[in-house]
């Protein structure tokens, strides 16, 4: 691991200011993804700004009947919150479908949003990777790509956004609140937070240099049935091949987002509008997909997973 200096930030604005003041600085919260990548020297920060002491670890109610989840709320605490379980069940379901108990106890809300892809070619520093080293090429394209993406990808990168939590946040229309180094705040809709890879797969989010996530807000509850269905190679502690986060109303209408297939949690308005017609909705959400031979199966798997979700919503299956 490369050497780094360390400081504990005193306030969110000071943390953001410190991040642009010190070259090569990064924030550290739970550290479960960052430290892993630092050991592999995929991440090589020269300075770490510890944001754990900033008091951003509360879940509070917003004026418009929603919830504000502090950036440092641990995944376990978020999933276990009574209001989240009652009104935003898809979020609890998504969080507990990911990682392990130990990791969820440490991982933060903001850090979960910022976790890096698990593409094996990104992790293997002997392989070319445009995300790890811009313009170095992509070994995944033409490589073993069963786990990799088919939407929001490009001829520079076919990595997926790996998380579960953000797929639920996408279906809930969450908003990411931040503070910039100049002290100004901004609110980024989750739909605009993660990017499509295009020509710059090393730029993964809408965050500007030094910009710090302070909270994620959820709009007022949607009602309906909250379902998160995750298909993976192991029953627990594995990343999704395909996942579907959905909120389905009694008449079968609703909304859904798909994980494990794209550069970001994937949701489209025409797919939502096609519900309860599963095949039309699945066709709409996978429209424009550019699969490899290895991951073409994910198109059918999206439809089957969505069919499972709809059956569960209608009480036809546990």
């Amino acid at each position, binding site marked *: *691991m490369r*050497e*780094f*200096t*360390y400081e504990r930030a005193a306030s969110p604005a000071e943390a953001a200011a410190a991040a642009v003041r010190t070259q090569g600085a990064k924030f*550290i919260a739970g*550290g*479960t993804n960052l*430290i*892993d990548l630092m*050991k592999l020297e995929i991440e090589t920060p020269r300075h*770490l700004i*510890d944001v*754990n002491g900033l008091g951003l670890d509360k879940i509070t109610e917003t004026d418009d009947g929603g919830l504000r989840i502090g950036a440092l709320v641990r995944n*376990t605490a978020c*999933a*276990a919150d009574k209001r989240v*379980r*009652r009104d935003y*069940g898809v979020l*609890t*379901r998504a969080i*507990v*479908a990911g*990682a*392990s*108990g*130990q*990791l969820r*106890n*440490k991982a933060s809300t903001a850090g979960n949003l910022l976790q890096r892809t698990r593409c094996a070619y990104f992790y293997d520093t002997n392989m070319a990777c445009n995300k790890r080293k811009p313009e170095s090429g992509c070994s995944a394209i033409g490589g073993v790509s069963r786990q990799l993406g088919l939407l929001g990808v490009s001829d520079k990168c076919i990595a997926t956004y790996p998380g579960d939590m953000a797929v639920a946040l996408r279906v809930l229309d969450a908003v990411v609140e931040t503070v910039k180094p100049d002290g100004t705040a901004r609110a980024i809709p989750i739909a605009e937070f993660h990017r499509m890879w295009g020509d710059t797969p090393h730029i993964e989010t809408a965050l500007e240099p030094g910009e710090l996530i302070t909270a994620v807000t959820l709009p007022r509850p949607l009602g309906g049935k909250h379902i998160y269905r995750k298909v993976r190679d192991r*029953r*627990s*502690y594995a990343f999704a091949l395909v996942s579907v986060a959905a909120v389905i109303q009694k008449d079968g209408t609703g909304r859904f987002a798909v994980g494990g297939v794209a550069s970001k949690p994937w949701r489209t308005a025409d797919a939502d509008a096609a519900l309860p017609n599963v095949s039309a909705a699945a066709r709409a959400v996978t429209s424009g997909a550019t699969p490899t031979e290895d991951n073409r199966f994910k198109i059918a798997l999206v439809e089957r997973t969505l069919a499972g979700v709809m059956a569960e919503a209608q009480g036809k299956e*546990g």
Partner: protein
Amino acid sequence: MPVNLIVNGKRESVDVDTRTTLLDTLREHLKLTGTKKGCDHGQCGACTVVVNGERINSCLTFAVMHEGDEVTTIEGLGMPDNLHPMQAAFIKHDGYQCGYCTPGQICSAVATLEEIKRGIPSHVQEDITQPPRATNIEMRERMSGNICRCGAYSNIADAMAEVAGERA
């Protein structure tokens, strides 16, 4: 950098490089070698310890981030002459073979039963608005971050069931 920790109830002060993980601090600085280094990447759970009441992977956290924290390792749970009920249950149910993953399994198992008691939801719960129960399937799901390559899983679940039953 200097760091002050409370490890198994005892105040400890160490001077560590910023890169030193909590795991290496426990093993190399404090000579508490019960906590094991397996994968060193948070995938195997051998390094599981309890920090401020919650189980974490000690390999994926820097010691400097734990100023003032309370850490419980396998040595703090119990020693051969004074076993923790979970340690005794692992022996009784043969919950290990080579033993390398065992300290992490036991720390994780103790914390898992606490998490169930505190009502932390899990992936296998049918109704997440209800309190979870310490069933076999719950324990298997919640222990998935602890790998045992000898495959002692069913005996570990039996040991946990016994301890959970004693508490009920």
